[in-house]
């Protein structure tokens, strides 16, 4: 596995640079400036501690590889992605799962990031424990930043127990009706026509909840629906190929929505952050998350 020092050397301290993960969301935030040097982050699971509910891995590790390893001990990380998505890529785009109402958002996942800054120097953001309020939370700034503030090499992530099982149901119920039948459903999604509910937990509990929903006209799905990735912003128009999360207002779609509007104050603040972290604009040039 590539070391942090080797990764740092790859990143260098002068040229335009980007980390290429699986390339599954490569176009987000704009096109990379031509001539940008593309490097790869370290790959591989370094250390999984189920009793701590943390895992340390190279940012270039495939998310599916990581989830498979965690699955052996009935744990998972609350990140979503495509088969080729990497851990670092999923963090950089802030790819929360459609189950976020129950398992939390992508921004809750990153506990520590060993990074290379725009100056080519290594630094560490966050800490390796599940609870931590020591200093400023740079990890939250890195999630969804599209690699424009620093480049993540090795990350420590929060894991969580996997539910014993999950059941998808489909029907036409309203959110209020579903919540009267279910305690903290993992997903309540709407595709413009139907409502899709995912309930998770232990078998007997789910049998009861499922029966309540079925009484109201929902039916158990034989095949799980395919949920596209999270996109930024609120629902703008009709859902053509995606889902609206009725619990959080998040949108899951294969078509990124138009640029999300931000206020002038937020833009000014975001510009200052970008300039302070990357004064020469060498990290992922051409891309902006806003």
């Amino acid at each position, binding site marked *: 596995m590539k070391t942090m020092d080797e990764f740092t050397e790859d990143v260098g301290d002068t040229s335009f640079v980007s980390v290429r993960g699986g390339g599954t969301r490569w176009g987000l935030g704009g096109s990379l400036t031509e001539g940008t040097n593309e490097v790869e982050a370290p790959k591989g699971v370094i250390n999984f501690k189920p009793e701590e509910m943390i895992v340390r891995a190279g940012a270039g590790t495939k998310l599916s590889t990581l989830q498979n390893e965690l699955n052996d001990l009935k744990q998972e990380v609350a990140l979503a992605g495509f088969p080729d998505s990497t851990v670092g890529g999923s963090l950089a785009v802030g790819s929360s799962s459609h189950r976020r109402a129950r398992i939390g958002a992508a921004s809750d996942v990153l506990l520590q990031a060993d990074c290379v800054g725009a100056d080519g120097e290594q630094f560490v953001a966050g800490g390796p424990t599940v609870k931590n309020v020591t200093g400023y939370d740079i990890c939250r700034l890195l*999630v969804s930043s599209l690699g424009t503030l620093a480049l993540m090499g090795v990350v420590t992530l929060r894991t969580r127990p996997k539910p014993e099982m999950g059941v998808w149901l489909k029907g036409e119920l309203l959110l209020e009706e579903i919540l009267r039948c279910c305690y903290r459903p993992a997903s309540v999604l709407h595709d413009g026509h139907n409502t899709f509910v995912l309930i998770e937990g232990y078998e007997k509990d789910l049998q009861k909840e499922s029966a309540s929903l079925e009484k109201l006209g929902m039916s158990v799905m034989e095949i799980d629906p395919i949920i596209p990735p999270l996109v930024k912003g609120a629902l703008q128009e009709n859902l053509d190929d995606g889902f609206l999360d009725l619990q959080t207002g998040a949108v899951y779609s294969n078509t990124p929505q138009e640029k999300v509007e931000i206020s002038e104050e937020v833009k000014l603040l975001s510009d200052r952050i970008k300039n302070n972290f990357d004064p020469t604009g060498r990290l992922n040039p051409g891309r902006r998350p806003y």
Partner: protein
Amino acid sequence: MRKRHQKLKDPLLKALIRALDENRVTDGASARRIYSKDGSVMEGGRAGIICFPEDTSEVAACVSIAKEFDREFVTRGAGTGLAGGSVPCNDPIMIVTTRMNKIIDVDLKKRIAWVQPGVVNLDLSNSLKGTGLHFAPDPSSQQACTIGGNVANNSGGPHCLAYGVTNSHVAALEVVLPDASIAQLGTIEGEAGGYDLRGVFVGGEGTLGVATLIAVRLTEDPPEIATLLLDFSKITDAAETVSQIIANGVLPAALELMDRNVVAAVEPFAKAGYPLDAEAVLIAEVDGLPEGVSHEVNIISEIAKNNGVREVRMAANEEERERIWKGRKSAFGAIAKIQPDYYLHDTVIPRGRLAEVIQKVYEIAEKYGLTVMNVFHAGDGNLHPLLVFDARLPGTLEKVQRAGEEIVQISLEVGGVLSGEHGIGLEKQRFMSQQFSERDLEAQDALRRSFDPENRSNPHKVLPTGSSCGEMSSLNEIPEGVWI
């Protein structure tokens, strides 16, 4: 008359009174003394003029005046902080949010409440009784601390083990930035675009601006709760039980540990039925749907038995459950009766090292001839060693400081961090360089400078500054509203 006349002569005071009104701005000596302290053992400078704004525009006016007069400002809620985060250095303008105490809107369908920062944490959950919802962060000071303070410190609490700390429960914030502009960070509709400014503002300890409106997510009340009281003859067995519960894929709602000294102090007061001859008492609470709760209770009981638990008692009813929690949450007040002074620590260590580190904490206390009491959030490895002492005895304060430094050192050596929920404030700035390299701290400073280029909002806190502000003092009484 003379005082009023003097007031009119001070242009800063005059400007602040014009922005608010005479009844909500004071520079009286007693007020300045009161607002120079918080719940911590830290002493800094002296509060300057104290303002009590009631809405966002008034906060913006205060910040604008601070900028105009080139003065620093410090925001303060109920003052229950334990790291000196709202202790003033020099004589800053104090922006006190206690009059911003309105619950503006509760949307039960979206499960969002917009509140002002001065709303007391428990008041929000109490106001939601009967709706089936509550605000999940439950710091032990919840009957006094404000939600604005929870945002500043990214507060936790016993039930944050399963539900997450404050950051996970804040959807959006309206803030006054240090340049007096007003911005909304985050959103209650979908996913915010751009950098996660909401996420970094929470836990900023008041150094990134002032939160003036907070949209909090409300959590569904669990249909079933089981509260277990487990007693052990060895604290190391209790700690091992905690590690194994987590390793077995059970994430209880709460997992709290109290040692023998704490039990002895608390039981006469709380009458919770804690066994006085136990070396350690573990409170484990699981919630959710009936089969899940029953299954997890069985796993916890089995693991405890394998680790030598003497008894596993489940609260038979709500009254018993409340008594068990009353003992835990009032631990600090009871401890205060033992010795006149205290110093409470707050570090986090890997759960798997709990047994070893607790043993070392006892050894450190013994080395310095001090009494240490342990009551803490075991489930997430958040230690709260409490040194109790009599500062009137010569040399004691120095011993307490040295013991405290060693406890922090041990926590870092096993891969822990400086703070789990109290924050850095003034108290732990000097340790920051032990956890972070200079380059790590530069990255943090880049964030801070982005929000506050003029270093005006609660300066001299969090990052090491070399400033002489902030000394540890002894407290001869527990301030009202301070809990572990």
